[in-house]
């Protein structure tokens, strides 16, 4: 079993996403806080990559940097070899607190990206119907977000991000606010959706079980310093059984890594 830490994986030139020596700091109460320190890793085309680490380790900042919502102080993010300079339709994002437009219905939210001039879908109505079907929200097309449960809201969030058919899906603790049973179901559905598309996924979580359930590759981040501790390839067949020895070994390994800072 490949429990050893993998090297950086593929070389930057063939990777879908290459994060190169990204550092970023922000001011808080007159002090400079180092949010990210010299982060490097890459994600292959079609790969499901989880970034796992304790709260406050800069996972979200990292994801926002890949999305182009934040600019790093040094280093760069490359997508298909091109540096990221801002948000783009090639990178869809799913937010922790859903970030649905409350004045738009489920249909209207999913449709949002399709109405942009940059998007050239020929039959948007149909595309929206397919997506509603895909995330299992039949019958809720005309509901407003306020009427939906957390799990349903995040289904809308996922469908909205998928609508413009991005090559990369960035997910920021998307299932952090839903109950455990719903989360399990959403994991299965997310993997099903991912299997039918050829998207690369970067999925941020603090839940080690969640990371091992989903990922091809896990990037482990620490807080002291806020950098990549190690990268790990998860070599388990899907669907994964959380009680199987292999699974438990991975979880123990990651927990061990997180519990012992490198310095």
């Amino acid at each position: 079993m490949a429990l050893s830490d993998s090297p950086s994986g593929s070389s930057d030139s063939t990777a879908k996403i290459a994060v190169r020596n990204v550092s970023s700091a922000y001011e808080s109460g007159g002090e400079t806080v180092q949010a990210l320190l010299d982060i490097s890793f890459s994600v292959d085309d079609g790969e499901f990559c989880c970034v796992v680490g304790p709260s406050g380790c800069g996972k979200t900042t990292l994801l926002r940097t890949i999305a182009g919502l934040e600019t790093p102080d040094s280093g760069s993010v490359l997508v298909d070899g091109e540096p990221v300079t801002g948000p783009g339709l090639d990178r869809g994002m799913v937010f922790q607190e859903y970030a649905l437009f409350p004045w738009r219905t489920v249909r209207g939210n999913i449709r949002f990206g399709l109405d942009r001039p940059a998007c050239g879908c020929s039959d948007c109505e149909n595309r929206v119907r397919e997506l509603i079907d895909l995330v299992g929200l039949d019958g809720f097309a005309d509901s407003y977000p306020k009427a939906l449960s957390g799990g349903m809201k995040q289904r809308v969030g996922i469908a909205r991000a998928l609508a413009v058919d991005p090559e990369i899906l960035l997910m920021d603790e998307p299932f952090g606010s839903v109950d455990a049973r719903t989360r399990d179901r959403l994991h299965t559905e997310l993997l099903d959706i991912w299997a039918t598309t050829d998207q690369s996924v970067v999925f941020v979580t603090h839940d080690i079980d969640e990371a091992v359930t989903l990922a091809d590759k896990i990037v482990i981040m620490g807080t002291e310093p806020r950098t990549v501790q190690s990268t790990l390839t998860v070599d388990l067949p899907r669907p994964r059984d959380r009680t199987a020895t292999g699974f438990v070994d991975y979880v123990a390994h990651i927990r061990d890594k997180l519990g012992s800072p490198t310095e």
Partner: protein
Amino acid sequence: MSVQTDTGRNTASVWYASDLRRYLRGLGGLVTFLAIWWIGAVMTQPSYLVPTPIESAWAFLELFTSSTEIVVPIVDMGLVLPTGVAHLTETLFHYVPGLFVGAVCGIGLGLTMGWSGRLDDWLRPLIRVLRPIPPLAWIVFAIVWFGIHHTGAAFIVFVGAFWINFYGAYGGVEGVSSDLTDAASTLGVDRDLSMLKLVALPSAAPQILTGFRTSIGRCWMIVVGAELFGAPGVGYEIINASNNLAMDTSVAYMVLISLAFLCMDVGFRRFERRILAWR
């Protein structure tokens, strides 16, 4: 099944009873007020100081049984209407343009200032100074610039409507969640104008509409103030009637203003509820 229907009917009838009780209490308050008014009016000498409710009711009726000719501004055309309607129309000739132009300008500036940090830096001190000036204080300029007629009164209403709507829109845009603008950016919104239209405006809509609804009421106060200085309309009729010691007619016009405001407020609340069904 039968249990369910029973509880359903029960809660409905309980709701109905408490509602009825509420209405009866409201009616009781109203009747008590009228009784005190009446006794006070009868006891006050000389009697013209406080007209009785009945006298006032007759004066109110008379607003609709007599007729008056007013002049429609701009087209300068005579128009004969029942007296009350005529003077209310005169008021609306400056109230409506003042309110709408003020609202549009206020919302426009509020949105842009709330959105653009640079414009905010430029204008914030100026607004701090201008904002506390009561709209009616501008009446001196309204008089020397426009004369105290429709335009002058509309200008005063404009000032009042402008600030309330400005703050509604400004606060609304400032409260737009960065999560929503981030989501929109990742979905291809890359121009400020699109972001304003697709995210900021709908997100600020509740505050903007509340601001507008508040300005409907405030502008009625302001418009009556402007008319007390001589602009034609219901406010002018209040002071005109009192100058002739026809206090019952003054009361009738006060009730007319109250009804006009109530209609607009209720109408707008309905509109608001429909637009903000998503809340």
